[in-house]
């Protein structure tokens, strides 16, 4: 929320900068307008200026939708502030709309009184109609509730480009620089440095110096336009002071990057090579792309399989042969892996399955986020087939949860499902880069224990020994038919099946002893209200609980990272609250899990619109619950 605090130092026109605590800005335009780049660069400049921030990119579902259509709109949202930022923001303080389609699609999210900046050159009769407007929205008073800054951005850009002497660029290339003009303006609006962007342009277009020059010119022009133009009094620059951020080295990181790197790190800490076997599927594909880049030097092999089943099987095959097999996919792809995952559970081999969840059911909404694969993760297998489920809460957190998934898979010889989602995959946040040398290794052992039998278990972990083919003296056979306790030979014996089923269950249940007790993320450890969440709703839930506390409502935030087994103290912790609210981006899957485990009364708050929660939605639901 863009709440005024104190006036800041004046801008180039001597205008007072209004100091505000935080702001939410969305860049929106056609897919070809470069909005993701614009957003990314603004994010970087913002991070460098010391704000905390969170971002949310939203891509069109089509590869290349026709220009000017609503389904071709691409946007990038950033929430930044002088305080800790946990979400990409609910409502927009600033919307940059590069064409009518971008305006119509995004208007509903704009706060009344907020600033809307439009490129009026793009509001041609044709494009207005294409967006579905009956008449020009800039002219018919429909935007009266907002502060609208209509600028001929394309014209201004062309002028700026022409000013670059000797630049040989096409008309198309010139027009394309308009995103940099807009970026320049917004940099001015929030008192951000251009330097990093200028550097980036230079690097990016190192081989196309003319393109670099016109883009820099457009950027400068936008910035200068803001700094020196007289604008309506209600349009004035802002200052968002730096946040109190723990000291350290930071970078922006997306969930896709963090989970990929976390897997590399996890395999390394286990002293194994990483065998990442996958089949492309949105939004999981990025992991395959990123890991393919790393390769050899990181002990990473990637394998693009013929389908998801083969990917899962190959990952298990790799684990069988002694490396860390990981497979990544999204809901429908994970569904296909179900049978193979059952084999990994039965043969007790390590396997990490990363599920970047998306809207379901079936093909559903591939480019939208949702967290509706929790049932599938915890319960979605034939037979009594328990395994481990962990979920990441933010882009940066994907790094640590990926390591945790690797640790548990290797230590307990079990499949582990790591849940991320479309939001986490694409969104990025400033990440306090950890000192990797401080991470505790958990080396895997392929050594043959004394009295080796493939299903003799470690008395502590109940894990079986991981003796791999190629090991002299360890020759043995395993398979999916029930195995005899100890020897692992095929056994149809009734009692043995009971014993083995119990072992499998006890092994997974026992992992609860090896994970941290459930903590309260915010608020007291017992009391009037617990808001319980998991996965990527961490941000909005945390912010909502913050707001509730500010509003004088005693509330706590419980965020569950280990979804199976659940932390040992969770039941008791929940019992300490009068009310429990469980917001999730599905029809109530965690709510079902908690009820089944603890028989607790709770209020489920489901939401499946393909978009993250708004803070206000949670606040409202919480107030209703406690105030009745």
């Amino acid at each position, binding site marked *: 929320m863009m709440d005024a605090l104190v006036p800041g130092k004046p801008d180039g026109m001597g205008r007072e900068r209004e100091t505000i605590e935080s702001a939410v800005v969305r860049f929106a335009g056609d897919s070809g307008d470069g909005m993701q780049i614009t957003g990314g660069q603004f994010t970087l400049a913002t991070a*460098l200026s010391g704000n905390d921030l969170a971002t949310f990119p939203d891509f069109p579902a089509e590869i290349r939708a026709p220009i000017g259509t609503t389904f071709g709109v691409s946007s990038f949202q950033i929430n930044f502030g002088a305080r800790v930022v946990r979400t990409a923001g609910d409502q927009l303080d600033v919307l940059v709309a590069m064409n009518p389609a971008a305006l119509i699609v995004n208007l509903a999210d704009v706060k009344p009184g907020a600033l809307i900046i439009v490129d009026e050159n793009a509001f041609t009769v044709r494009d207005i109609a294409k967006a579905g407007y009956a008449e020009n929205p800039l002219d018919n008073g429909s935007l009266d509730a907002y502060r609208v800054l209509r600028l001929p951005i394309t014209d201004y850009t062309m002028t700026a480009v022409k000013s670059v002497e000797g630049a040989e660029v096409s008309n198309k290339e010139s027009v394309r620089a308009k995103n940099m003009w807009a970026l320049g303006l917004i940099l001015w609006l929030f008192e951000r440095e251009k330097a*990093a962007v200028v550097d980036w342009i230079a690097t990016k277009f190192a081989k196309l110096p003319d393109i670099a020059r016109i883009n820099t010119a457009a950027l400068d022009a936008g910035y200068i336009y803001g700094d020196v133009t007289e604008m309506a009094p209600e349009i004035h620059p802002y200052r968002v002071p730096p946040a109190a*951020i*723990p*000291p*350290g*080295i*930071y*970078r*922006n990181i997306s969930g896709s990057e963090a989970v990929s*790197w976390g897997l*590399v*790190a996890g395999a*390394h800490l286990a002293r194994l*090579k990483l*065998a990442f*076997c996958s089949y492309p599927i949105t939004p999981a594909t990025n992991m395959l792309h990123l890991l393919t880049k790393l*390769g*050899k*030097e*990181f*002990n990473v*092999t990637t*394998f693009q*399989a*013929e389908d998801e*089943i*083969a*990917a899962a*099987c*190959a990952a*298990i*095959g*790799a*684990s*069988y*042969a002694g*490396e860390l*097999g990981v497979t990544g996919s999204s809901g429908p792809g994970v569904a296909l892996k179900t049978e*193979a995952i059952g*084999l990994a559970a039965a*043969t007790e081999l390590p396997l990490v399955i990363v599920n970047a969840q998306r809207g379901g059911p079936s093909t559903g909404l591939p480019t939208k986020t949702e967290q509706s694969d929790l049932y599938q993760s915890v319960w979605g297998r034939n037979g009594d087939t328990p395994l481990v489920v962990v979920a990441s809460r933010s882009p940066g957190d994907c790094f640590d949860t990926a390591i945790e998934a690797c640790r548990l898979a290797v230590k307990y010889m079990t499949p582990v499902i790591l849940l991320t989602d479309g939001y986490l995959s694409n969104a990025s946040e400033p990440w306090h*880069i950890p*000192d*990797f*040398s401080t991470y505790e290794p958990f080396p895997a052992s392929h050594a043959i224990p004394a009295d080796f039998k493939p299903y003799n278990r470690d008395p502590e972990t109940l894990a079986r020994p991981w003796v*791999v*083919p*190629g090991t002299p*003296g*360890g*020759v*043995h*056979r*395993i*398979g*999916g*038919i029930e195995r005899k306790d100890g020897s692992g*030979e*095929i056994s149809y014996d009734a009692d043995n099946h009971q014993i083995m089923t119990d072992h499998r269950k006890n092994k997974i249940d026992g992992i609860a002893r090896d994970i941290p007790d459930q903590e309260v993320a915010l608020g007291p450890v017992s009391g009037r209200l617990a808001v319980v969440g998991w996965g990527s709703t961490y941000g909005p839930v945390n912010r909502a609980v913050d707001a509730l506390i500010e509003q004088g409502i005693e509330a706590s935030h419980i965020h569950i990272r280990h979804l199976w087994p659940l932390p040992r103290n969770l039941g008791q912790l929940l019992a300490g609250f009068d009310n429990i609210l469980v917001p999730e981006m599905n029809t109530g899957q965690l709510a079902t899990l908690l009820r089944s485990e603890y028989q607790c009364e709770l209020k489920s708050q489901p939401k499946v619109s393909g978009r993250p929660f708004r803070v206000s939605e949670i606040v409202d639901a919480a107030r209703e619950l406690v105030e009745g």
Partner: protein
Amino acid sequence: MNLQTKLGAKDYASDQEVRWCPGCGDYAILRAVQKTLADNGADPANTVFFSGIGCASRFPYYMETYGFHTIHGRGAAFATGAKLANPDLDAWLVAGDGDSLAIGGNHLLHVLRRNVDIVYLLFNNEIYGLTKGQTSPASRLGTRSPTTPAGSRDEPVRAARFALGASATFVARAVDVQKDLSDILKRAHAHKGTGFVEILQNCIVFNDGVYDKLSNKKLAPDNTLKLVHGEPMIWGAERDKGLVFDIATMSPKAVSLGEGGVDASQLLVHDEHNLTLANMLATLDSIPGMPSPLGVLYSREAETFEARTRMDRAETASVEQKIGQLLNSGHTWAVA
């Protein structure tokens, strides 16, 4: 690894009781494989048998090597993953015709085109043994089964033809009880890449006798064509039949040799490396009167999957450092 004493075929037999039906063709194949390993001086600790599900797929349990009995139809994918992790494993895959050509058809296609360096043994009994006798995609027209009481009418998949279509680099055919089965297995094993062998295997319970013409000592000579690279294609108990190619019809033709017949020099000479010939051989026995070719139909050299994916393990210290660098790469900034 140098084994101190050479192992005999029996040393490759595990202590598990073999549980195929008495008289099943799988026994003969098991013996031939064990002999092959012995002859190859295979290191049991570096040898691993993968399989899917089916009667054939019980195979790994009977070998005193590493073994992984996986899930139905996916053996090839497991083997591929294992070779990704450890390219030096001596890996074999045993899969039934259902396992390979029904549920596993896609993985067979891809393991072949990737040329993963394993031996792929397809036990083709033209039936689903383990689930008690339904037709498989390999069942020939007219096969009666509980799911085709009036006889099967679907065109069968022909394993060798399919393998060639899938860009296989080595394709051979053999009969379970064939004396020199082990020789063919050795060829497949020596091949760099997927050594695909279709073994015609008798299921005595559910499909007895489908290969009688090829396995019966009396009938076999007239009904099988033993392929030898560089040799003219001759068969028959009297070795009096030969194969020629009729360019006018672009088709193979059977001719009589010797007196009044054709001279051996006019016969087609087997060339393992000729794909057109291999394709023709793969469907030869669907022409009435033509023999069923046994031996190596096709082979060619090609880069293996392992050659493409092999990766030495990077040093722990160097990876540690690289990860540190990775985390700190790109635009970073300091907060004081």
